[in-house]
Structures are given as structure tokens and as C-alpha cells.
């Protein structure tokens, strides 16, 4: 009987741990395991590929954008740093409909749904983008690229409008 109870508890724990970290989640922290701020070595491990810089550590440019595959999906990542060691993930974007926010917002969602879903957040709306800003941490944002008021791209990056704000 004790074994039965232990097994049930263990199963429940595994279930909840899995439920809290769904695959393909877009959050203020990043997309899935590709989290903003992780270093080059960790990025290479997750992508199972080497990243070769053309600018960082070579010339004056300290940001570079790469097209990569992550779990079979096309992604675009921005890296920022002055050399190999200090380079960090600074932005990540995808057009895959597999990737969604915890509220289910992803490719194909319309503008009105985003506005109604995130009433407690700051939304910076332009013709091309809706930037969802974490109101308690204005430096983090989820960016929806829009076309005809529908999401066609989704990503996470530091909030451009508040980059220089304390």
C-alpha cells in the first residue's frame, strides 16, 4: 500500500513538473530552453552546432544575428558581446506556429486578442510590431511581428524602448 502511495505521489510530481515547463513556450525569459542571457557555449550545446563569429571579437560590431535550427525549427538569434567569453543571447525569434506564449498567443493570433489578453501589461503597438512588456520588469519583452493585424512572427528580446532606462 505504501509503495502504491509513493508511486502515485512520484507520478503526480513528474506530471506537474512536466506541465509547468511545456515545450515550445515563449516567455519573457526566452523561447523554450533558449533563454535570454545564456552564453555562447550553452547556446552551442542546445543547438548542437558551432557558432562562428564574423564580427564579435573581430571588428567594432558587438551584435550578430544568426539563422539557426532549434529542435528542427528555424530560428533567428541575436548575440551580443565584445568577445567569445562575454557573448550572450540577446534576442530570439521564430515564425513557427508551434511556439506560443503561456496564454496561447502565437502565429495567426489577431491584434484584438493580444490587446484583450494582456490588459495587465504594457503593449507598445506600431504598424509592424506589438511589444508585450512585463510591467514589473520593463526590460523584458515578447515581440509579435504583425501583418494585416495578425501575428506572423514571435520572439523575446530586451525592450528596445527602455534599453537605456534604469
Amino acid at each position, binding site marked *: 500500500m505504501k509503495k502504491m502511495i509513493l508511486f502515485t505521489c512520484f507520478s503526480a510530481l513528474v506530471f506537474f513538473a512536466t506541465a509547468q515547463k511545456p515545450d515550445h513556450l515563449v516567455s519573457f525569459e526566452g523561447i523554450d530552453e533558449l533563454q535570454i542571457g545564456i552564453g555562447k557555449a550553452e547556446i552551442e550545446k542546445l543547438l548542437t552546432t558551432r557558432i562562428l563569429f564574423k564580427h564579435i571579437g573581430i571588428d567594432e560590431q558587438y551584435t550578430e544575428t544568426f539563422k539557426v535550427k532549434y529542435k528542427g525549427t528555424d530560428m533567428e538569434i541575436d548575440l551580443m558581446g565584445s568577445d567569445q567569453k562575454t557573448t550572450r543571447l540577446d534576442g530570439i525569434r521564430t515564425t513557427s506556429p508551434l511556439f506560443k506564449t503561456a496564454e496561447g498567443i502565437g502565429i495567426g493570433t489577431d*491584434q*484584438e486578442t493580444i*490587446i484583450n489578453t494582456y*490588459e*495587465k*501589461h*504594457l*503593449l*507598445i*503597438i*506600431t*504598424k509592424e510590431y506589438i511589444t508585450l512588456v512585463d*510591467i514589473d520588469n*520593463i526590460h523584458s519583452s515578447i515581440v509579435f511581428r504583425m501583418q494585416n493585424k495578425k501575428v506572423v512572427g514571435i520572439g523575446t528580446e530586451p525592450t528596445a*524602448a527602455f534599453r537605456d532606462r534604469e
Partner: protein
Amino acid sequence: MKKKTPLLLGLFACILFSCGNKKEKDNPPQNNDYLVSMTGIDSLKLEMTKAQLEKLLNTKLSLPGCATDSGGDTINVKYKNMDMTLFMYGSDDSTATLRSIQTTNASCKTAAGIGVGADKMNVIDSYADYGKYVAPELDIYPVRSTTKSAVAVRDTVNTGAMVFHIINKKVVSVEVISYYEFE
């Protein structure tokens, strides 16, 4: 009798038409709306000085906050019989200028027809080419309201904005400010 029916119908139609025309002449389309733009509301323009405002409002303004350089003054005034809330800022009251104009009067509308009573979504859709900040308003710092929000339509040239204050998805007041910063 049958021959007279079309004639009677025609006569009836003529009477109806003339009555309709008379009604239109008696009540021509009114245009009592006051224009809200990035530069101000009607003749109340941002950056106006205290002296210019006093002349326009035909009243003396007291600006103790500006006079003592302690953060500016919020003053309630009547303009063309409408209630307006003005914010003046300056290091002394002679150099203070108008930084914000706010009203709850439904006669004040933007060129797109947006004013008090407009839907939140309508505000956003009406300014598709402008940058907009949409966020819940502060109740008591740092707590944000669950019913009050604001849509700030940023000026494409200057630092100003038209801010539409909203309760339960309807505009309740319109504000024009010379410098917008999300807080």
C-alpha cells in the same frame, strides 16, 4: 379613380420630400466639436505662456508651484464653458508654459472623431500609423487598476502624445501632453 392613384402618390411623395427638406433647413448639421490634436485642444495650445492663457481664458491664473519652482501647477479652468484641467510648468510663473490639457467634455474630438465615449479598440485602430502605448493606469502607486487604462498615441515628430484615459474599455477623458513617458 385608378388613373388618379399615381398622381396622388406623386403628390404625397412631393409633400414628404418638401417636409424633409424643411426639417434639414431648420436643423442644419451642427459642428460644435473642438479639435483635439497633438498641439492642443482648440485654441488652447501646448507651450502657451501664462500671459497668453490669461488673455485667452479672460482670467488671472495663480501658479504658486511654478512661482516657487516646486513642480508646477495643476489648475482647473473653464474654456468656452467646458471644464479643462491644465498643467503648467516652469521655474517661475512668468516663464511657466502649458504642458498638458485634459478634458472630459464629449465635444472635444480628434480629427478621426475620437473623444469621450469612444471604444478602446476604436482608438487603437484609428491611429494605425502611430506608435501607441497601451497600459493599465496606476491606482495608488505601485498598484495598477483592473478597470482603468490609457492609450497614448505618440507624436511622430515631437515628444508629445494624445492620451486617451479609459474606464471599462470606453474613453472617459482626453489629454494632450508635451512630453510623454510611460510610468
